[in-house]
């Protein structure tokens, strides 16, 4: 691993600016050349419950979080209670010294099961149930404590700036915490000033106050705190690096690949994508007048899906974005799109089910549901992206698949990806090709929308073009699209539609079906956002001379059984890693490849995997000490 591998955690009540604090920190580190992997955890709540952000900073590309926290910035009691034990020996905790006497019972948002565990721990170490108590444990472990009276800082600032209102402005706590942290690691202060200026560029007065606060807090840390063992002095920045949030990958992909209609119903964690699309609804087009995306908020997910299909019938690239519960409502319409051969893309940012489950937490819960979604047999594609950078290019690809094969595509993303922030190479829209398949610009006489063709794909008209009249129906239909119940025609139409599954497997390049990162005796097979923790864990093992293979599945349906079988022929021990209870991909794999998995590494706490815990489990497997089913538990 590189010389800098530093994890910073900031926590606080929801609504207190934890996220903007983390954004400032991430941006400063990225500006100073570091690679970033950040992740936000939050409750299904607007104000008051605990949220936190972990930002991992490295000199080399990183793909996940680790368990160890090097520096924790807190300004409330709950963050300390919940995370003090994640800070490793040699790390540090910045905390509000006014809170030292706070008891666990003073924090009403500490839920019962957690408090019980914490009390047990404190009791066993003979410590009081207070902030002072947990901090003692941290100190004994070798964690440096950095007490700061946040209120005194505000009071001093109020005096300095002759602005008495500042005294009570607890909203500034986040900026103080971030700046103290950056001072402690000796990050050059200019980037902090610049970043705050950028963030508040539209409110110069607020920018000034924040910059003053930041500078004061930064200097406070460098002057008053003894040396911290980690420094982030900045490194050479790689050109064309972007700092991007999870949902922006698919949103930017949609803009670039010509998706011009998106309907949606609000749902966590999917709505951010639609809101981002609407915020950028007018689009610049090369050598042409401006384009635009119609982003429509509907009354429910059923309407979102119906509108997207209606729009797709006009030849517009159309999409909706949702999460499991919303997708559940869309499935009747999915079948309609299937039988009517309507190209449409449903982006599913999965979260923890069943039902509302853990509404704001992570889970790869919808694989089998999406693969088997809709009643009756119809062709569809289920496609999974492994990370944010991939999701941009994959979005372009799935719209092509949808157009070429005239099928609905479910693009699986998840909450881990949606609330991650990463640095990566600037997306290149020129790499996005656009293939509309058999979409017609002009129609000859005697047009038949569902013409039986050799390849099973009919030329596609669109609502409103001359001579292009067609009929659609959810019933079985003839070539024109009129209802039929004729048994012979029924078989022809079914066979025609279902033949598309083979066509898909034949025509989607293998490199887009599954990606092999090497096959070894021990080989991991996984899908979606586990990619990051897996890649980092493999790298950690490599440094110890242990080689583990990894095949990332992307085309989940139709399942690329032959290709995957051929990839895995030299793998002896198969390891399934995924974030759900039942090992859904494992079942799908077994059904298609007729091979059993030897090990399952699963996580369904609602929190994303860290590379540390994946590494630990893999190590156990290598050492023959693992259970067949390893369940990961890290994360508050």
């Amino acid at each position: 691993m590189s010389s800098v591998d530093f994890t910073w955690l900031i926590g606080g009540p929801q609504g207190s600016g934890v996220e903007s604090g983390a954004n400032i920190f991430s941006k400063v580190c990225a500006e100073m050349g570091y690679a970033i992997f950040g992740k936000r955890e939050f409750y299904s709540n607007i104000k008051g419950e605990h949220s936190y952000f972990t930002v991992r900073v490295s000199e080399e590309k990183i793909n996940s979080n680790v368990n160890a926290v090097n520096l924790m910035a807190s300004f409330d009691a709950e963050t300390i209670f919940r995370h003090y034990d994640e800070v490793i020996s040699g790390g540090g905790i910045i905390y509000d010294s006014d809170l030292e006497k706070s008891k666990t019972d003073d924090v009403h948002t500490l839920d019962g099961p957690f408090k019980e565990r914490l009390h047990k721990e404190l009791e066993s170490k003979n410590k009081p149930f207070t902030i002072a108590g947990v901090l003692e444990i941290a100190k004994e472990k070798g964690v440096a404590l950095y007490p700061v009276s946040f209120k005194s800082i505000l009071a001093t600032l109020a005096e300095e700036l002759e602005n008495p209102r500042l005294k009570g402005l607890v909203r500034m706590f986040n900026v103080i915490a971030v700046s103290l942290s950056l001072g402690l690691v000796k990050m050059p202060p200019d980037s902090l000033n610049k970043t705050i200026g950028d963030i508040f560029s539209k409110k110069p007065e607020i920018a000034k106050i924040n910059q003053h606060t930041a500078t004061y807090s930064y200097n406070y840390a460098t002057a008053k705190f003894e040396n911290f063992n980690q420094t982030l002095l900045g490194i050479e920045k790689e050109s064309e690096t972007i700092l991007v949030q999870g949902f922006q990958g698919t949103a930017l992909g949609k803009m670039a690949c010509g998706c011009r209609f998106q309907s949606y119903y609000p749902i966590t964690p999917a709505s951010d994508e639609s809101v981002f699309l609407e915020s950028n609804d007018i689009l610049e087009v090369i050598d042409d007048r401006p384009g635009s995306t119609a982003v429509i908020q509907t009354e429910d997910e059923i309407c979102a899906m119906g509108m997207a299909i209606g729009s797709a019938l006009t030849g517009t690239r159309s999409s909706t974005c949702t999460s499991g519960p919303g997708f559940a409502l869309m499935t009747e319409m999915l079948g309609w799109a299937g039988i009517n051969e309507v190209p449409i893309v449903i982006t599913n940012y999965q979260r923890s089910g069943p039902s509302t489950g853990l509404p704001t937490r992570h889970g790869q819960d919808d694989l089998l549901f999406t693969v088997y979604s809709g009643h009756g047999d119809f062709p569809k594609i289920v496609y999974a992206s492994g990370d944010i950078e991939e999701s941009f290019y994959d979005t372009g690809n799935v719209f092509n698949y949808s157009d070429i094969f005239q099928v609905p595509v479910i693009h699986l993303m998840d909450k881990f990806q949606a609330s991650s922030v990463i640095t990566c190479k600037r997306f290149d829209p020129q790499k996005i090709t656009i293939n509309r398949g058999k979409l017609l610009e002009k129609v000859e006489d005697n047009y038949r929308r569902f013409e039986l063709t050799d390849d099973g794909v009919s030329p596609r008209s669109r609502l409103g073009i001359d001579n292009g009249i067609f009929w659609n129906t959810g019933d079985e239909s003839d070539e024109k699209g009129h209802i039929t119940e004729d048994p012979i025609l029924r078989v022809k139409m079914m066979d025609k539609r279902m033949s598309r599954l083979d066509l898909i497997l034949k025509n989607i390049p293998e490199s887009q079906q599954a990606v092999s990162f090497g096959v070894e005796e021990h080989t991991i097979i996984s899908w979606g956002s586990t990619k990051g923790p897996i890649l980092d864990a493999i790298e950690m093992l490599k440094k110890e001379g242990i080689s583990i293979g990894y095949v990332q599945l992307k085309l989940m349906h139709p399942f690329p059984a032959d290709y995957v079988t051929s990839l895995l022929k030299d793998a002896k021990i198969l390891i399934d890693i995924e974030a759900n209870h039942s090992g859904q991909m494992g079942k799908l794999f077994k059904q298609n490849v007729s091979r059993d998995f030897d090990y399952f590494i699963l996580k369904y706490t609602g929190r994303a995997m860290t590379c540390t815990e994946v590494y630990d489990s893999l190590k156990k497997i290598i050492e023959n000490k693992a259970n067949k089913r390893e369940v990961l538990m890290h994360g508050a």
Partner: protein
Amino acid sequence: MALKLSDYKTDVHNDWCPGCGDFGIVNAIQMALAEMGIERDKAAIFSGIGCSGKTSHFINTYGVHTLHGRVLTFAQGAKIANPEMTVIAAGGDGDGLGIGAGHFVAAGRRNVDMTYIIFDNGVYGLTKGQASPTLKLGEKTKSLPSPNTNSNVNPIGLAVASGFTFIARGYSYDVRHLKDLIIQAVNHKGLSFLDVLQPCPTYNDLNTRDWYAGTDLVEEAQKRHSRIYKLEEQGFEPVVHYNSEVEVNEKVSQALIKSLEWGDKIPIGVFYKNELVSPYTQRIKDKIPNYFENSPAKQNISKNGHSNTDISKILDSLEV
């Protein structure tokens, strides 16, 4: 070449029951399209599920037979993506006011410039006559095991409350009058709603053609009068002209009061019309100035097989 009425008919065999009120509605739609001279490939008929759902197959324009209760969702999406289309949605009262009632209300708030026609017969015909949302409490049509245990919904009243900007009722056996209403509805700028009373000869033995004709009201044939009367013949003034709150409230209230009339006297005609409310497409144009000239369906999205969308400014803002 001018289009004739026959040009709007398909050769699909119509399998509705003999004497079904639906025939009058389809004829009226075809007559209206022909009279307005709307090009066949610039119109799309969307339909729901049930007997009325087959409507789109009988009309020779683009035809989209959708799902139960969902016709408005498909139709609105198509109209928003391609605002040049003439869009008519059609469905039954169970379809639109039962399973699809949520979409009905939401569509009113949106006011997309299109027409929605409900074939209102009080029963679920294609599933053999169960009670539909417009059948009244305690009524027992012939295939119900016991009298209806639900109260009815008032379609006109619901449309008023939901914000539809053109609200009318027609009768499927007065095809000419219905055709005129459809023309007004299609020409209306905004979402128009037509509640069409449509006797189901097979399952609704209460609200029959004879019942609407008032044959049960008096014994002597010469004194008989239809239950149905036309609002326009009574000097009813449904149009909002000035968009003042007072005027809108007055027109909304009188439409609501009229919608409650039922029994011996049943009004048809236009209940409410307000073109001063902006259609949804106009609201999009307010955000996206070239929306009508370069609607989603019209946009060119590629150049030589590659993306032609320039997202560099957004990427610049993400660059560190």
